[in-house]
């Protein structure tokens, strides 16, 4: 098979075929000797030449992460014939969302809708695992909308407020 692999933003062209237990591999045109054993789900024992690696795979929210040694890589595998690209929201000067970084409970709101906030000013306090964390404004501006109230439970990724 032929695929485009994106590793932390850099793209590779990978050609990989398996026949009778043997792998044929070409990475950006370089031919490499590859041998792989899936030791258990999400754990791959990989040999490239005679170098040996244990690769761990982890799905985090909507991303696939592979660990090589102590390093983690965000990975994307695409069919080069597919025209679909992943639309990424670019850097935006407009309204910014305030996201809950972990599941927890909103214990305090430090601002009201319409308040002016500085970059880094506390907007809400979320408590999880007995630890209170201040969620800070991602930009200087005005609190356009608050979506939560004190006492409610939130999940990681939930939008708490919008600052414009």
């Amino acid at each position: 098979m032929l695929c485009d692999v994106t590793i932390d933003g850099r793209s590779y062209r990978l050609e990989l075929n398996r026949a009778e237990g043997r792998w044929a591999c070409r990475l950006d045109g370089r031919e490499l000797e590859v041998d792989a054993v899936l030791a258990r789900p999400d754990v791959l024992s990989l040999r490239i030449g005679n170098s040996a690696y244990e690769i761990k795979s982890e799905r985090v929210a909507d991303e696939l992460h592979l660990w090589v040694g102590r390093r983690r890589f965000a990975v994307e595998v695409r069919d080069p014939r597919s025209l679909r690209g992943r639309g990424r929201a670019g850097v935006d000067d407009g309204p910014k969302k305030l996201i809950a970084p972990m599941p927890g409970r909103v214990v305090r709101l430090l601002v009201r809708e319409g308040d002016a906030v500085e970059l880094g000013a506390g907007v809400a306090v979320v408590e999880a695992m007995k630890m209170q964390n201040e969620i800070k404004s991602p930009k200087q501006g005005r609190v356009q909308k608050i979506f939560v109230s004190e006492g409610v439970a939130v999940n990681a990724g939930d939008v708490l407020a919008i600052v414009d």
Partner: protein
Amino acid sequence: MFKKILIANRGEIAVRVLRACHEMGIAAVVVYSDVDRAALHVRKADEAYPIGPAAATESYLNIPKILDVARRSGADAIHPGYGFLSENAKFAQACADAGVKFIGPTAAAMEAMGSKTRARQAMEKAGVPLVPGTSRGVESQQEAEEVAARIGYPVMLKAAAGGGGKGMRLVHSVDQLKSFLEAARSEAQRSFGDGEVYIEKAIVNPRHIEMQVLADEHGNTVYLGERECSLQRRHQKVVEEAPSPIVDAEMRRRMGEVAVRVAQSAAYTNAGTVEFLVDQERNFYFLEMNTRLQVEHPVTELVTGLDLVHLQIRIAAGEKLPFAQQDVQIRGHAIECRIYAEDPDNNYFPSPGKITLLLSPSGPGIRRDSGMYEGWQVPLDYDPLLAKLIGYGADREQAIARLTRALGEYFVGGIKTNISLFRRILRDAEFRAAKLDTGFLDRMLKRSEDEDGDAGAADVAAIAAGVFAVLDSAKTAGSGNGGSEPAGAHSTWKTSGRREGLR
């Protein structure tokens, strides 16, 4: 000896105590809240009783419910672990009243030590060196300002009933005092049900060194050497080691003797820890006594060869200490890492969730006390401590080398952990030189991380990604079509298409 012990706790410490029970031929009874039915301590127990909702106040902190389980199960003793009810004198008294042995000190000893302000008063009398400050809670903002002005900024606000950094604030100026006092009070009230807050002079960048003591119920008290606990974040210990690199035999003896005096002044029994602040001239000041087993007790166990939980149980059963002070020998070096469910890339925010993959280290000189397992959902209702990894070696260097090696083997997938933080600490030049103080971690985290550059790793990841995709599609094809042929491009793209669709 006891026949059955109730463990009034959860997580790794419940498992630790349960193991000691089984080693001693004692049945282990556990309790669990609604979100802990699948917890490891329940899986390993001989008997398990539900005690209510996730909120600790309605389960692990609920004295009547726990005593009811003791009665129904016929347990003859209760081990409280650390945290929760472990330093609650009312609970110790309620156990005594119910005829169940509390494995720990008496309610009276706990009361003398449990409140940090009362402990200070007792220590003043016993002639134990103290950090300047108030020996009672401050009543008003005005009083706080007066005290702070007298002893000089910076000052530390502390919850009288506190521990674990809750209700604690470092105050640099009178401007900060008002809001910090309120915050410390409300946090103390929330965490401990007691809003009393007192003031101490803040010793800048001290070391935090503590002395383990053990006292039987026949008047024998010994010290088991110190633990260096200077590596902290938000006043939470992160790495502990024994012995302390700056404590020599003579200093150990002096600290140990003060610790024994502290314990004896309160007629203390069972295991306890006397905490000291140590300044740059190696002067030590009594900070507080923790009237329970400490999280970091394994480092002491490794360098003394003693099992503190076994000894706690024997002492509670009325046995005499099986050794004297001169028999206690410190051998080798041990370092503990507290593995927390925290996201290092997001300011170490808690990161609960499901553990999708768990690879655990083992091998020479490695001990792992863990409360997690693969497939387990880490609840968001409790402390984020998942496990403790402890390395032991003939000396500090070997302990560091083994721990570093073991951290490389440790992998927790699906949630974020602070494992990478320990790799950074252990290779830090200052850490290796044992230049430790309580400001160490904050300073280290401010420095940018030196990436150990491995240019080839990204190539390896690219190949691995492709291999995973091929194997995935082969699996899909195998189960879907009943065919054994490696998948062609078509099904591969079905798989990755499905993956795309999930985004």
